[in-house]
């Protein structure tokens, strides 16, 4: 059966196009899959930012969904997402714990005093050891942990209300329906 080359051109051109689309999709930084998704949230017990005698960790939220937001006063995107975080905190749907990374207590506390504090507690991780357990490689990053203590979502980069509505809330709603 003859197969003149010109008839193959459309499908080959399409294949090239799809290849570019695949590359293009993969490049979105907010969607790099985390190996932690579906696994239990790594435990930690760190000093809280404001009070070294108060130890905080995932155990504080056993049985309910919560957010972990990784930030630092040096982090540009954290400044940008702050408004959105305050709004999310204001909704009182899930508690947010901050994980203060690679920072100095004074500067971090001043940052929160200046801009507002959306967190119920902030864990102080100056050398980043805990963040390594969570697969964190930059800030800001936000994790959603469900009521059973499993990490169900990771968002890389500043969070927006759009992302919150479109990606986090459905997971929360789905989780609320499951036994």
């Amino acid at each position, binding site marked *: 059966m*003859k197969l003149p080359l010109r008839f193959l051109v459309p499908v080959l051109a399409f294949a090239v196009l799809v290849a570019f*689309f695949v590359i*293009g999709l993969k*490049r*979105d930084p907010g969607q790099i899959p985390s190996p932690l998704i579906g696994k239990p949230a790594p435990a930690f017990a760190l000093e809280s930012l404001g009070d070294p005698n108060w130890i905080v960790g995932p155990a504080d939220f056993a049985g309910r969904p919560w957010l972990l937001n990784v930030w630092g006063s040096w982090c540009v995107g954290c400044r940008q997402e702050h408004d959105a975080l305050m709004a999310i905190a204001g909704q009182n749907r899930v508690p947010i714990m901050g994980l203060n990374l690679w920072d100095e207590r004074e500067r971090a506390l001043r940052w929160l005093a200046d801009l507002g504090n959306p967190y119920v507690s902030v864990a102080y991780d100056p050398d980043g050891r805990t963040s390594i357990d969570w697969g964190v490689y930059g800030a800001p990053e936000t994790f959603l942990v469900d009521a059973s203590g499993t990490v169900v979502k990771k968002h890389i980069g500043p969070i927006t209300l759009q992302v919150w509505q*479109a990606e986090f809330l459905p997971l929360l*709603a789905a989780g609320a329906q499951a036994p």
Partner: protein
Amino acid sequence: MIPELGHFALIVAFLLSVAQAVFGLGGAARRDGAWLAAAGSAVVGQFVFVALSFGALTWAFVERDFSVLYVATNSHSELPLFYRVAAVWGAHEGSLLLWSLCLAGWTLGVVAASRSLDAPFRGRVIGILGIISIGFQLFMLATSNPFTRLVPAAPEGLDLNPLLQDFALAVHPPILYLGYVGFAVAFAFACATLIEGRLDAAWARWTRPWTLAAWMFLTIGIALGSWWAYYELGWGGWWFWDPVENASFMPWLAGTALIHSLAVTEKRGLFKSWTLLLAVAAFSLSLLGTFLVRSGILISVHAFATDPARGAFILAFLGIVIGGALVLYAWRAPRLASSASFEPTSRESFLLLNNALLVAALSLILLGTLYPLFMDALELGKVTVGAPWFNLMFLVPMLPLLLLLGIGMHAAWKRGHLLTVRSRLWIAAGCAIAGALLIGALAYADLRPITTLGFALALWVMLSSLLMPLARLRARQPLPAAVVGMVVAHFGVGLATFGITGVQSFKVEKDFALAVGEAASIGGYDFRFSALRDVRGANFTGVEADILVSRDGEKVTMLQPQKRLYNSGGNPMTEAGIEVGPTRDLFAALGDNLGEGRWSVRLQYKPLIRYIWLGAILVAFGGLLAALDRRYRLPARARDAQTSAATAS
């Protein structure tokens, strides 16, 4: 309860789509009458359940059920009823359900109108449409469920984007989707033809009215979008070559080439592989457009909420459907070569050139739209392709196309004797050039070459279109709807060209800082800012300006632009004041309070802009007339007799 029923109905619809695909394609392969009949029933069932699902979602919106996440994100208790309904398709999930409803509707139409079609062929067409339905419904059920609950329910919704709280934009998606999705019918017919390896051109006759109807909807949808952008976005532009706009324009160009190519295939059995490829391309571009605007892969000022996970799904779907069709094409199309010949000045020749030029324009726009993506994927930087490039690239193939359009309309099939009309065409050409020079000189005191060329081509197309029915009437020849449709549509193209030439050549847009009592002048009109007051609406507050427009001292109109602040979310919106006239639009938009009692105001003088949309409406109307031609509504044998009679004339 109702949302859960809606969700359930969607699941049932999905299962019926699967049945439709299996029984349709399987029944055709096995030549099993029972299976084929079952496929038809599955189509009816699918439509019923998709409609039920859509109805459930609409009910949730109308009843302000904020326990449904999608409703809470896109509606508000103060939203008027009309917009509560329009909000159903205001965002991603709901618009997918609308897509699915449109597809179910078109499929039902095909089933109802094609009883005399060869049963296995029909089964294949239904089956392929079923596969597409599966894709969209699976997409919804897996990643974009409109019925997800919000627990606890929100006390108030986030409101529909104020931009969408507008009549034109509210009806724009359903009309546009009817167009996009309608091309799936041609696609399915093409694939079925390729699967069966049919050598005859009967499928072209079947496909043509469906394609014309879909194309008509797409034309109206695009025109509506352009018109809306003009008055609502506040800045007076009517086309931006934005990726989302291009995503709708590319299928339209392919569709235009397709309806012309179908004419040749239907009448003369030629261009079969071209027509099949165009049928695949038109729908593929519709799907591609869907992918581009929902996956976040392209940066656009009006793309949907971006989500690469969804993008991956659509891409996979795209790969299967389009890739599959193109593989089918590569495998089967070589067999379909036709052997009839035609003269260089025959209609076939002109239509071939028409197709080539349209495909050239389409390819350039596709390149410009996708180029930023390629650059980004290869990490060569973040770029956008500017509007000037698109303008130029579109213009270059269109100029010869308009010229040839005027001649080609009169060319006869196969032999193409232009002798009889030649003299009249020369007269028309002369009048067109004279008319263009007159308009340029008298109305605008401007005889730039490109402008004169634009006007001349526009007049040429319009005059040439009118020559056709006049000649026929004089010869006492019949004037079937198809011919009238062609004339009207081509005249519309000329009219739109007239408008585009006028507005692009002579528009004036300027920003001013005006205090109450001050005036500015553009395009020969004086705009005096005479008053400013507070206003209040159902769900907004704001300010309104009175701008008195006069010319040579005589009052022309009072424009009243507003700057609104919507109650929910505090989004500001500009409502422009527009005065429509037979030769121009006058446009005023209110900006911000600049201090010292001054406000920023954008004034625009837009000559002939209305003719663009008027032309587009005529184009769509022409398509409708052609689709309703009697020969498509007659039984097969009588249809063939009519076709040969029409060819002979």
